[in-house]
């Protein structure tokens, strides 16, 4: 025997610290897939009308878009294993046009599947413990959270076990599958809110009480769309094991009393707004007090302990020093690498590790799109250098949450070869945009080409860094899927007399100090909007008190006047 030992591919057998289905979960998804196959067959046989089929397919993430069906795959709380991401790449190639689109709700959309093949796609997903359940429809949608959950240094607790508990509890809930409208829940485990919880139907902020026991501040009634409203606090502190019962009480009040007479007034935000937060809170508390919840709380505790065990970090190398000499040297020697590190690397809670953020916003690209080859590259890197785990962010980027500092340079090089090393995280070209008129049946204007044009205008990285932290968010219609209300600069594409018109809002913020942007003035034509954005940015650069004053801080200090002056005075 030769003494040569073949080196096993490092990490190839890594089991990531994410939730793994047990026999019940597997059976559930398998049965649901068979059920949907039956529904599709009855639709094709004419036993179901399109009207009857529509809510059924929506409950399974199937939309009828402008050109084709669209399948939205759930990525619960934005956490993926390498195996799952590789499967998504396979599906993109076999059933779609070789790419997928990561969404603002941490999901993935396939834009070109055929209806008859969707049950096969769902079977492919079920094999890797994935599904498309409740990614659309008037039901409880995929629960979203902080993309850095479990690894952020500023976190109180990892919120993902709670998200998983909510995922299971909300899956095919018999009482809450035909709500007045869609229902979105977001959870943050950090006081720095990266999950934009105030813009959700229910927002949950993890807290600890005076004795250190975990719980939540429970908010309700947030939402964007045509009536942007920030969520209000219903309970300042809810003991954590009461979560399911209390969320159930909110849902029941909403299901019974939410408006059903007008689709545009059917979200819970309208109920909270029309009743007033005090009356709404009283209704929820009365419903909650009338029920018996002790048994459910005990089950929640036991179940949470089981789920938490899945999320225990495994495989970290112990006792790594805070700094890695090789990494430090590379930063000093390679200016391009250094620029990417400054923008895309985030501090990890474990010494010697980093959070690597992968921008899906190359200049001129479609925000959130990834090809099958890119997905495979990320999956391979996750297995080799990242404990087999990937996150999807609500800003439509990807994350390798656990990379040793000493591996970061190699990861960066591999990302660069795949066109994934754009160093623009959080900068002006890291734009959120909805699919807009290029795909969506609801859209009134294009949004992807606007994002591309703005990114091209600001392609110069030095200029982007000079501008600093500036979030542009673009929606192609009033439904606000591009979150324009909470963009520092928000752009809303409307249609006025058959022509696209883009309305600008300033001062929105999705973070812990959430704010809805204010409309600046009359809209701009498609070929004017990029100039208008540049004028706004130049106004900021000329007026700010040095680079320490961010765009949002500058806007808060001076208000809209200088921007209006610069944009409209010459008109």
């Amino acid at each position, binding site marked *: 025997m030769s003494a040569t030992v073949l080196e096993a591919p490092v990490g190839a057998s890594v089991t990531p610290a994410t939730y793994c289905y047990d026999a019940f979960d597997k059976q559930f998804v398998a049965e649901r897939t*068979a059920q949907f196959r039956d529904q599709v067959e009855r639709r094709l046989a004419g036993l179901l009308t399109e009207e009857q089929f529509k809510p059924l397919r929506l409950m399974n993430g199937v939309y009828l878009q402008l050109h084709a069906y669209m399948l939205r795959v759930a990525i619960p709380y934005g956490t993926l294993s390498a195996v799952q991401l590789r499967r998504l790449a396979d599906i993109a190639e076999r059933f779609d046009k070789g790419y997928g689109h990561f969404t603002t709700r941490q999901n993935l959309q396939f834009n070109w599947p055929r209806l008859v093949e969707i049950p096969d796609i769902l079977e492919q997903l079920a094999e890797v413990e994935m599904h498309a359940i409740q990614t659309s429809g008037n039901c409880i949608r995929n629960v979203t959270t902080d993309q850095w959950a479990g690894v952020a240094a500023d976190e109180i607790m990892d919120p993902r076990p709670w998200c998983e508990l909510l995922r299971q509890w909300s899956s095919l809930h018999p009482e809450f599958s035909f709500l007045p409208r869609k229902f979105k829940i977001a959870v943050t485990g950090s006081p720095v809110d990266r999950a934009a919880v105030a813009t959700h139907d229910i927002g949950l902020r993890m807290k600890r009480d005076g004795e250190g026991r975990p719980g939540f501040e429970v908010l309700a009634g947030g939402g964007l769309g045509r009536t942007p409203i920030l969520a209000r606090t219903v309970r300042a502190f809810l003991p954590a094991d009461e979560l399911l019962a209390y969320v159930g009480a909110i849902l029941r009040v909403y299901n019974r009393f939410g408006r059903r007479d007008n689709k545009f007034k059917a979200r819970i935000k309208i109920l909270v707004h029309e009743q007033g937060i005090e009356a709404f809170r009283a209704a929820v508390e009365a419903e909650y007090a009338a029920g018996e919840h002790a048994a459910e709380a005990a089950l929640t505790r036991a179940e949470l302990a089981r789920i938490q065990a899945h999320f225990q970090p495994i495989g970290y190398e112990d006792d790594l020093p805070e700094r890695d000499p090789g990494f430090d040297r590379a930063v000093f020697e390679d200016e391009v690498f250094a620029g990417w590190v400054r923008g895309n690397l985030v501090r990890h809670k474990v010494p010697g590790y980093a959070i690597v953020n992968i921008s899906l916003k190359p200049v001129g690209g479609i925000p959130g799109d990834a090809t099958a080859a890119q997905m495979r590259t990320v999956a391979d890197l996750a297995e080799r250098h990242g404990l087999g785990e990937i996150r999807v962010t609500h800003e439509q980027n990807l994350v390798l949450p656990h990379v040793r500092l000493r591996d970061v340079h190699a990861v960066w090089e591999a990302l660069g070869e795949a066109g994934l090393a754009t160093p623009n995280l959080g900068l002006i070209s890291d734009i959120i945009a909805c699919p807009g008129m290029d795909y969506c049946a609801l859209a009134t204007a294009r949004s992807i080409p606007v994002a591309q044009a703005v990114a091209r205008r600001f392609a110069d990285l030095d200029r982007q860094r000079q501008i600093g932290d500036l979030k542009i968010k673009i929606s192609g219609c009033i439904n606000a899927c591009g979150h324009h209300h909470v963009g520092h600069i928000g752009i809303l594409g409307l249609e006025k007399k058959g022509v696209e018109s883009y309305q600008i809002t300033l001062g929105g913020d999705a973070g812990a100090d959430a704010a809805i942007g204010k409309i600046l003035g009359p809209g701009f034509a498609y070929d004017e909007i990029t100039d208008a954005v540049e004028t706004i940015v130049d106004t900021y650069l000329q007026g700010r008190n040095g680079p320490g004053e961010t765009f949002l801080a500058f806007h808060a200090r001076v208000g809209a006047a200088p921007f209006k002056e610069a944009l409209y005075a010459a008109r």
Partner: protein
Amino acid sequence: MQHDENRLVFQDGQFTDDVWVDLPDDGPIPVEGPAIVTLVRLAGDDGEYFLHGGCRIGVRLRPEDRLGDLVPWMARLELIALNFEKFTDGRPYSAARLLRERMGYRGRLRATGEVLVDQYAAMRRCGFDSFVVAKGRALRSWQAARIEMSVRYQAPQESVLERRHARRAVLEVA
């Protein structure tokens, strides 16, 4: 006061003709029933008769009716019909659970209106045990679709959480 020839009732695992009759608010009250009245009629001038009379009685509710108004007649009601004005209107699911779990109702709980087979499982889980189905395509659909979920994540029936808990208890004993 007639049976609707265009519909069947699905209950206890089979289709049957409906023995219940929907009573209009101004029609005469049958001596024996079984008759289904509105909440308006139940709580109106005839309420005393329904409370003590020998007539088999049921009530049909609209989604906006207050469940609390039923309390005086709860022991007398053999059937409560909750109407799905559209199958996408989910209010009767909550009403059914409140009747079963909080008001202790044990009689027939009937789903009327747009009752489709794909909602059957959810309705049953919320406490419905009687389903009025239109003949024709809807009925064929009921006969064709037989795929049900055996795994549930929520109360009121035994949920996955409880089944896992039971497994853990086995492990502790072992």
